[in-house]
């Protein structure tokens, strides 16, 4: 007894308890629900058996039902546009800004830090801001674009089925750009200066230095940033209820919002679980890429 007690205060037992309690908590709140989600996606769940564990087994019925929904392919297409559009936009603008802020001028890191304010704001507020900026008749973005002579008419960002998914994507690019820039800046700061000096002495121009030094040296950072981009984009939920609510006619609905609608608007929890299980597969692929490219830093 004494030995166990002293192990808790001084030895291995101490470490085990520290890790064990937290791991148990996380297991109960993430591991168990994940398994439960798999189970539910093979069950028939309705309001009457919500409180019991004995629900009829449904086999692949839920999966078949989801795939044969008329909006299924539309949601897949929208999710693809949202994910790839967001990642491309965040990465390209983020990379350009990160390179710009590596130049030496006064207050460079302070101004760069200010960009991150978009990332700490509640998602719903960001959605509200962009919902107003993108408004059709009175939105300021249309006014600016008209003023610059880029468009003549009015772009109905939120109510035109061809544009609505882009409206949410634009908002998401703004939201995630700063975080991308910050991670890429860390990678850029890790490249030794003398490489560039040597290349400059050898007569390499800016573009050559970028393709032969910056890109190869940044390979693992870029991998991590792209994988994180995929993960965070699939986690993005708040912008949808705030800007378009998935409409009009599902033209801006994506998997994560669709799953929520099944569970909490149609109260068909089994279908909600099914859609989210399909998403988890993509998330897992992304996270394997992410873990592989950060293994280095995490184990550091």
């Amino acid at each position, binding site marked *: 007894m004494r030995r166990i007690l002293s192990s808790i205060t001084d030895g291995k037992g101490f*470490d085990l308890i*520290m*890790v064990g*309690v*937290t*791991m148990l*908590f996380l297991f109960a*709140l993430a591991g168990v*629900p*994940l398994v439960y*989600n798999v189970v*539910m996606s093979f069950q028939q769940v309705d309001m009457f058996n*919500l*409180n019991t564990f004995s629900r009829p087994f449904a086999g692949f019925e839920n999966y078949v039902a989801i795939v044969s929904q008329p909006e299924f392919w539309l949601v897949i297409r929208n999710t693809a546009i949202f994910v790839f559009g967001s990642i491309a936009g965040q990465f390209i603008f983020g990379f350009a800004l990160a*390179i*710009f802020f*590596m*130049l030496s*001028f*006064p207050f460079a890191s*302070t*101004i*760069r830090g*200010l*960009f991150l*304010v*978009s990332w*700490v*704001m*509640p998602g*719903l507020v960001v*959605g*509200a*801001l962009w919902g*107003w*900026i993108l408004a059709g008749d*009175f939105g300021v973005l249309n006014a600016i674009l008209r003023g610059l002579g880029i468009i003549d008419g009015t772009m109905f960002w939120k109510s035109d089925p061809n544009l609505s998914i882009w409206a949410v994507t634009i908002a998401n690019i*703004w939201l995630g750009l700063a975080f991308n820039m910050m991670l890429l*800046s*860390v990678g850029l700061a*890790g490249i030794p200066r003398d490489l560039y000096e040597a290349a400059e002495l050898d007569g390499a121009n800016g573009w050559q230095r970028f393709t032969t030094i910056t890109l190869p040296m940044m390979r693992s950072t870029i991998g991590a940033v792209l994988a994180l981009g995929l*993960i965070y984009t699939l986690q993005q*939920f708040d912008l949808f209820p*705030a800007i378009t*609510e998935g*409409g009009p006619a599902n033209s801006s609905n994506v998997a*994560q*919002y669709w*799953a*929520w609608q099944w569970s*909490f608007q149609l109260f068909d929890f089994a279908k909600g*679980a099914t859609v989210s299980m399909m998403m988890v597969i993509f*998330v897992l692929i*992304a*996270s394997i890429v*992410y*873990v592989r490219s*950060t293994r280095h830093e*995490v184990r*550091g």
Partner: protein
Amino acid sequence: MTRVAAPKILLVLALALAAVYLFPLYWMYATSLKGASEIFANPPTFWPRDPDFSIFPATWERRTMDTFLWNSLVIATGVTTLTVLLGTGCAYVLARYRNPWIDIGLFAILMLQVLPASVMITPLYVGFNQLGLLDYPRTAVIIAAAGKSIPFYIVLVRATFMSVPSELEEAALVDGNSRWGAIFFIVLPLARNGILVLAILTFMQAFGEYIYSKSIITTQSLQPASVGLSGFLGPNSTDWNGIMAYAAMYVTPIILVFVILQRRIVSGLTSGALK
């Protein structure tokens, strides 16, 4: 990449980029101060013609923001407390050892970090319902949101602990301190800044939490400010100056804290790699 470019021109360019990027924030404040007819002016006025500050108390009153913000505060405080209590010790142990078990634990935590809240909410809701936790909706949200924020907290706080040399701790043990003593008097004070920054970030995130609260809390008087905002927001909103006034009152504290602690938050996030 250092070029002999005029730093002043670059500074002006950087300020211009920041101004473009932060324009949505300016637009929020500008719109909230406009009158009901001016918000629909075409072309829009970029500076409010006749700033009207009475919208703030009016919106505060009409949207019962005191209740909403109080609930946000309760939820954020709960999530932060739970995260710091459970996450700090775990991060410390994960930082001190190097063996396959630790690697497995880290891998599991990284994997948990990537699960979308929209995936977890369905099983959590059904499970909480069966456990009867839905009768305490704010507690249920706190537990669920803490499960989401702990992995993120552990990964970054662990990086802070790794920068505390373990020799200092060993010296304390040799001097007769217990493990607890070494942690409380040597390690924690040295890691204080990192822990504080991550706790603040956790708080900010929980303060804006939406999906769990929206799904779990059905009683209006217990809902946080994010759900309150969603109540009058949607594709067909027209009350834009009211919405912007609400949004401004909701985020201004967050923005202020961020601007004051900006340098520390950035270095905490990037684990000191970027000064």
